């Protein structure tokens, strides 16, 4: 079962995504801060990470840089951006190594589909 990290500061959206992704056959690891998410990614304990661009403790660009440059991790990253988020922020994060993004509001099925497209094949063998 693929293990997906969802880093979302909002408890309500986090609960909904956790519930729905488990229904779609994923194991979900929850985080509400960038630090919690980084700890998981650094330990190589997740197959993919879904991260809100508005983290309480990190700018998203620094967060992506840390993962790609400092940790040298190639874990697939999907960003969740809010409607009013500047597209430049998302664009810069994609340039820095994030793989995809979705704008809130979105349907959970859409997220599940993006996750499946990006998950490494080995994640399904676990």
């Amino acid at each position, binding site marked *: 079962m693929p293990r997906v990290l969802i880093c979302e500061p909002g408890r309500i959206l986090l*609960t909904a995504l956790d519930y729905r992704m488990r229904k779609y056959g994923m194991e979900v690891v929850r985080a509400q801060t960038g630090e919690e998410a980084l700890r998981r990614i650094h330990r190589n304990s997740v197959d993919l990470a879904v991260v809100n661009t508005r983290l309480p403790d990190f700018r998203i660009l620094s967060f992506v840089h840390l993962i790609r440059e400092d940790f040298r991790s190639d874990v697939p990253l999907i960003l969740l951006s809010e409607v009013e988020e500047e597209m430049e922020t998302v664009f810069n994060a994609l340039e820095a190594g994030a793989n995809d993004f979705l704008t809130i509001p979105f349907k959970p099925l859409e997220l599940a589909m993006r996750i499946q497209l990006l998950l490494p094949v080995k994640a399904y063998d676990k």
Partner: protein
Amino acid sequence: MNTIENYQWTDLTYLSEICDGDRELMKTMLDMIVAEIPAEIEKMQDAAQQRDWKELFELAHKMKTTLAYVGNADMIATTKTLEMFARNLTALHEIPELMRSLAQAASKTMVELKRRAQNIG
């Protein structure tokens, strides 16, 4: 007997969408929202009273996200205005009145949300 419920203060279209129509999840989410909104408004009132505009801005931003699930246009508009005033440090004298109006709208909305949660469960 068919009962047609009229809901004046809430529109759960987005909540239903994010739950993919799953009633069990919708009930859980509504219970969380009903618990969260009054507590967050209280924090906003404290921040406004202490003139802690940075805190008020952050709380209003968070509240706006929560309100998107509830679909109350008046509350969303008031919260957006509070967020803007607190961020830009403009029209700060209007904040107490906006907070009163938000709290009043919230009390009606909470009654309706509780009714909706009961109807789902």
